[in-house]
């Protein structure tokens, strides 16, 4: 979208940051950029909390008998790790921070359609998060992030209701964000910004928002039923009253499977923006990537039963779910191949965001392909609920989504803060994360196939070697995640001034000062062409050494 019909004044006059400094001006802001920052801070906090849980898990698993913590504590640790990472970090990660910040700018809008709702969603999120953290410190919860009944509804004597309410509440923040995005994309595009000219980031968020809007309420009401069952001793999922525990699994996964695509779709959106920018090329297969996002969103609602192959679900049901799970792999494959093709005949530079993108593509491919192992009925019977599953989803969620999230932070950091970070440290951290990650989670594929069940506090001694490797990797990973926290914070004061468009990127968000003014643009941009017209743009940095 280089061909913007005006030439904006790019000197920062009154950026969204320096327009007011009081705490109140932040907590009562309706500016999507400030709300994005609020989310960013909250989410970073949750990530490190979840990471501390993970660290203790890994330390405990160094020895077969697990003597660091007791079994009850261990059970609470992985539950809270899962709950925090999924509901309070990964689901809001890209949409609520980066999405919130750049989506309206990419559309050339002054704000989201419902700014007040947007702020509300942050408060709801914080209330939900606080409730869950209160549950964590006042006794914890030990049901696993999946809350399977009847364990959660009748047998567990931990803080299930409080945690459930926390997750329930947070669900609404996700719904509100999704709703806001959908309506904004429909009604607030800049003049000339037709659907076929939308950046693929927008398409991806649109698809993810559909899932948030139509999936989240189902898990909300399901969790409500579990809470009601605990409080009023109802029998909705309790076999003693004729209830069916497997029905809970249906309702839970109806949301929670699509939820994994709430996480991955925005990540895929990020990849499109970065890969084009650092190879100075238009995206290969625009239509296919956009359509595959929608296809993923739709098919993702049809495959939930692949988590239930051995749950006494009908064998035929299992076959349908397996079949559809294979179908959902195809649009993902399309994306991977198109990103790779985008590199072809490009002018590629290796800046930090691009390194994360390479990491993403590789690890997502491996994680996604191991998803096919799980979708294959007969094989899943063996690997279900083993560390093979743990490896699969960390490959996608940590290797994929978190990589993309880090890439996004590094890509838009100059836009968000107006400062550059120190490139070489950033590259170093990216490489460390990549290596540490593989060392942590690859051994888990093997130990999983050997039969080590997940959620095991103690395990037979022959699995120890692989577990120690995993723990070693996790410590590298931990350091890798702490480094960016340091240099990014440092850059806030000492980083080089970035200027409006340090990467010479084409998106509308780059055609305004960094950090942007409150209403994003001094003049509403007009769009006259498709996105990613990099051949019209000058190349920054020149040849790479």
């Amino acid at each position, binding site marked *: 979208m280089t061909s913007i019909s005006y030439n904006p004044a790019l000197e920062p006059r009154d950026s969204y940051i320096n327009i007011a400094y009081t705490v109140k001006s932040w907590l009562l802001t309706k500016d999507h950029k400030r709300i994005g920052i609020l989310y960013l801070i909250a989410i970073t906090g949750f990530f490190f909390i979840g990471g501390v849980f993970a660290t203790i898990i890994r330390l405990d698993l160094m020895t077969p008998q697990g003597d660091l913590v007791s079994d009850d504590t261990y059970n609470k640790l992985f539950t809270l790790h899962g709950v925090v990472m999924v509901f309070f970090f990964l689901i809001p990660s890209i949409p609520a921070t980066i999405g919130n910040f750049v989506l309206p700018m990419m559309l050339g*809008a*002054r*704000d*989201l*359609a*419902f*700014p007040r709702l947007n702020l509300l969603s942050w408060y709801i999120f914080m209330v939900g998060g606080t409730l869950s953290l209160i549950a964590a410190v006042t006794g914890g919860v030990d049901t696993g992030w999946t809350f399977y009944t009847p364990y959660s509804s009748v047998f567990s004597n931990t803080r299930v209701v409080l945690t459930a309410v926390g997750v329930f509440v947070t669900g609404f923040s996700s*719904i509100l964000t999704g*709703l806001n995005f*959908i*309506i*904004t994309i*429909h*009604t*607030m*595009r*800049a*003049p*000339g*910004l*037709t659907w076929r000219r939308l950046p693929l980031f927008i398409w991806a968020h649109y698809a993810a928002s559909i899932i948030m*809007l*139509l*999936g*989240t*309420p*189902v*898990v*909300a*009401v*399901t969790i409500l*039923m579990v809470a*009601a069952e605990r*409080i*009023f*001793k*109802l*029998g*909705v999922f309790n076999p*003693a*009253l*004729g*209830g*069916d525990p497997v*029905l809970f699994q*249906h*309702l839970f996964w*109806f949301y929670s499977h699509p939820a994994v695509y709430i996480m991955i779709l925005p990540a895929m959106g990020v990849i499109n923006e970065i890969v084009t920018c650092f190879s100075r090329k238009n995206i290969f297969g625009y239509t296919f990537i956009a359509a595959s996002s929608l296809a993923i969103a739709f098919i993702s609602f049809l495959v939930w039963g692949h988590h239930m192959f051995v749950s006494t679900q009908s064998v035929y049901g299992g076959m349908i779910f397996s079949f559809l799970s294979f179908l959902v792999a195809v649009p993902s494959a399309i994306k991977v191949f198109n990103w790779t093709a985008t590199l072809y005949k490009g002018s590629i530079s290796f800046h930090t965001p691009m390194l994360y993108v390479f990491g993403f593509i590789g690890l997502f491919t491996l994680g996604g392909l191991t998803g096919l192992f799980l979708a294959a009925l007969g094989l899943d019977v063996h690997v279900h609920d083993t560390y093979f599953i743990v490896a699969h989803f960390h490959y996608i969620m940590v290797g994929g989504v978190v990589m993309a999230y880090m890439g996004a932070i590094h890509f838009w950091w100059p836009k968000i803060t107006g400062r550059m970070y120190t490139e070489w440290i950033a590259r170093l951290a990216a490489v460390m994360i990549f290596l540490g990650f593989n060392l942590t989670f690859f051994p888990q594929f093997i130990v999983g196939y050997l039969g080590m069940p997940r959620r095991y506090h103690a395990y037979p001694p022959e699995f120890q070697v692989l577990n120690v490797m995993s723990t070693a990797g996790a410590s590298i990973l931990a350091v890798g995640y702490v480094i960016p926290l340091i240099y990014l914070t440092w850059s806030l004061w000492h980083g080089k001034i970035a200027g409006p468009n340090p990467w010479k990127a084409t998106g509308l968000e780059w055609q305004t000062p960094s950090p942007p003014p409150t*209403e994003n643009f001094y003049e*509403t941009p*007009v769009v006259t062409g498709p996105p990613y017209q990099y051949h019209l743009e000058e190349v920054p940095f020149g040849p790479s050494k």
Partner: protein
Amino acid sequence: MDQASRGSNRDLSRLEASQILAHQFDDLAQQKEASNLGTWAFLATELMFFGGALTAFVVYRTFYADAFAQASREHMSIPLGTINTAVLLCSSLTVAMGVHYASHGQQRKLIFMLLATIGLALAFLCIKATEYYIEYSHQLVPGLNFHYPPHHHAHPERLTASPPHVELFFCFYFFLTGLHALHMIVGVGIFSFITWKAWRGKYSEQYYNPVECSGLYWHFVDLVWIFLFPLLYLLH
């Protein structure tokens, strides 16, 4: 909305409507479209919210068909349920009329309709409460005093169904109607707020969007009941 036309006449409408136009929108049409679509998207969410619980109900209903039918036949009051449905349908009419008057700028009639709606909603809730009370006194509230077969029933010999299945029916009965009643209470809150605004003359022919959107919400609550009524009271 047609994108090309978005830029046009924005300055004009901006001046006129600076009071009611939020800063992020270009003109009133855009704002109205956004809030209308937003409401519909919200209703889709609500649909899935009730849908999750309804799915569970339907699953059990197909497998414990006899027990559920018996529970409904022996313990649900069709007269009260019918009256309540009628009350709710009336309130839907008053809401529709309210929106109609709002779009014609007829303030007094709008306020009248809104008050009528609130009245009908309260009537519904009272009847519902009466039903709950009756069920309570018949020992039919799971988790509180469920006892089956209950002590006072005219034809105890007809109560052959397995008690847990009847209890399951009542779990769903209270869960679904409770959730619905909660939505009604929220609706009463919304309409009270709208009435107050209307009283203060905030709405006009140009700007009555909040009335319309809360109307949509109310109709949705009505729709839920249209399905709950046969599912809980009538499927014998």
